[in-house]
């Protein structure tokens, strides 16, 4: 624990120094891309560290409340249990796990293309929208701490998920980040919805449309793989749209044209 605290402290110091350095580099050609990398470096670092500390720092468990909200959303069978039908066979679990993993390249590619290939106005909006979404979602992880159905409803599922390589990758990745945590809201759904909506709203209709099936499959995967409640998906998508609208308001055309 002491070593980790030291590592986290060092990384935070690096980020602070990077921020100060970027303030002095305003106007340089590479500055916007470097700023984007730094912002997401901080956010992803926070995500990795949250898993360790949330359940020690916050003394309550939000899983029962989220389960009740799910029951309110879908009065019949809870969506997570209904989604068992999607993950009953090894191949379907593998397929869904593949889509779950595809979140990472999609998001990174969106960031890469957004930071390097977009005009200043759109780049700023993407950065502000994604950073706001991540910030708000982390608040959810902190103050509505939940491990998700895979832990909270473990006894309710008919059978463990069969799976192979991709499912193994998903499980290993989650274990390495401190086990299932941060169920509310779903950043898988939120971030991909935002990326897709951003493309659709900013003259990249083709890219937006071709990822619609991916988002649908990611949403199905988060339920079928038992990491999220349906309410997490709904709130994640709603937050994404709200953050995009907020970014459009916060980053007016004049600010971007002034060379930010």
């Amino acid at each position, binding site marked *: 624990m002491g070593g980790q605290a030291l590592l986290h402290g060092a990384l935070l110091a690096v980020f602070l120094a990077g921020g100060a350095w970027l303030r002095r580099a305003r106007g340089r050609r590479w500055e916007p891309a470097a700023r984007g990398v730094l912002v997401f470096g901080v956010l992803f670092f926070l995500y990795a560290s949250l898993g360790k500390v949330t359940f020690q720092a916050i003394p309550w468990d939000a899983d029962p409340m989220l389960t009740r909200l799910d029951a309110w959303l879908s009065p019949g069978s809870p969506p997570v249990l209904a989604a068992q039908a999607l993950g009953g066979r090894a191949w379907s679990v593998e397929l869904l796990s593949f889509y779950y993993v595809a979140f990472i390249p999609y998001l990174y590619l969106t960031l890469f*293309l957004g930071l390097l*290939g977009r005009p200043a106005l759109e780049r700023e909006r993407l950065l502000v929208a994604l950073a706001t979404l991540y910030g708000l979602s982390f608040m959810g992880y902190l103050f509505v701490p939940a491990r998700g159905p895979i832990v909270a409803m473990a006894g309710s599922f008919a059978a463990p998920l069969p799976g192979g390589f991709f499912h193994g990758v998903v499980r290993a990745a989650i274990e390495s980040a401190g086990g299932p945590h941060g169920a509310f809201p779903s950043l898988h759904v939120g971030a991909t919805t935002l990326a897709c909506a951003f493309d659709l709203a900013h*003259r990249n*209709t*083709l890219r937006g*449309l*071709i*990822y619609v099936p991916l988002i649908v499959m990611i949403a199905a995967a988060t339920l079928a793989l038992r990491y999220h409640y349906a309410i997490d998906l709904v709130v994640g998508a709603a937050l994404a749209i709200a953050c995009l609208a907020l970014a459009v308001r916060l980053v007016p055309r004049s600010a971007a044209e002034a060379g930010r």
Partner: protein
Amino acid sequence: MMYRLIRFVLGLSLRGFFRTVSVQGIDRIPRSGPVLLISNHANAFVDPLLVLVSVQRRITLTAKSTLLGHPLLAPLIRAVGVVLLHRAQDVAHGADPRANVEALATLARTLRRGGAVYLFPEGQSHSDPGLRPFRTGAARVALDVVGDGAGEADLAIVPIGLHFEQKERWRSEAIALVGQARSARAWRREHPEADARALTRAMEAWVREITLNTDRDEDRRLLVGAAGLLEGVDARPPMLGQEPPWAAEAHVARAHRLLEGARWLARHRPVALADLRARVAGLTERLDGLGLRPEELNLDLGWGRAAFFVVRELELLLVGAPLALWGWLNHLPALLTVKALVRRMSTELDQWASNAVFAAPPVFAAFYALQVGAAFLLLPGAWALAYALSLPLTGWVALLYRDRAGGARRRTRTFLRLRSRPAELDALAGELRDLALAVSALELEIPDDADRHDL
């Protein structure tokens, strides 16, 4: 409700035919109050649709009376309340020009009630390089509404210039450029003795300001080529998929200035004009031969930019391929049917787009009904529903994918061509810059108000 539904469906169809549908200066069309829209008529039914699908307020259209005999168009005409005009040349087909008195009165009543009316004063769609003489109907309606100009009644007359990259070509650009709105009452007060013919001449001048008009096709091609060359001198090719619509206002203003200059030169420096024409024609021909647009001479040829281009385009082309393929497979029969129908129905250039835009909705709806019906018969309900939902999404993806893949292929070819022939690139870029300098030098000699009257 019916009007909105038809506008939505035809809007989809229009955007399926044209890659870009843009109304520039749309804010110049008043959102309320009486408005008379007038424009050139270059592409038959597509012309009113361009504005109709982009403007939120309801617009009353006019059409030739003989269209009521068309089995597909007749129900549409009735549903959206089109006012029929009887042309003299259609008398043999049942038109009765005497009925125009009532038709024009109906239009005037619509305007008095605060409505919007769209008229084509040329009277018929055509493919001439310039405007045809305006008829007086639009002016008579306007004067009928404002009377002698002494009362409160007013009417905004809004000229619209319709521009097509290549009007009969699938996935080309269609732009409506809205001009400055004029008050009919103010015009009436300034011209108390004038009749409908005088207002018709004024209307024609207003539409000329925002359209390109020459006597010959060859002159028009040269004019458009010259304007394109001069715009490309300092421009950079836009990023694929981020192309702004063709900037019609700036382009038309530049072309008008060129035309003014050409007319002045024809009288005062004919040799200089002949030299310029030859240089423009030569450079345009060389660029066309290489498949280059003028601004592509400024393409960033660095390998870093090229690598970024490859990543960006490969992502789209690889991820989008399955959806696009699915879309093509499922829409190809309907598309081929529309194509066959359009070929059969179209005899003039200005009929292709219109026939495609109007034939597509019923044909695609029929194929969708067949395909979805078959899916529900053959597949479990959930799969059939997924199939039905996939149709519009993948159809649209297939269309955009086709545009994008074509653009990427073209840009790649340009990049490789320019990289492999740097000397040729330098020579062309030098020639383009010299041409721009020569035009600028001549521009200084030409008085500002030269020949504006005969544009």
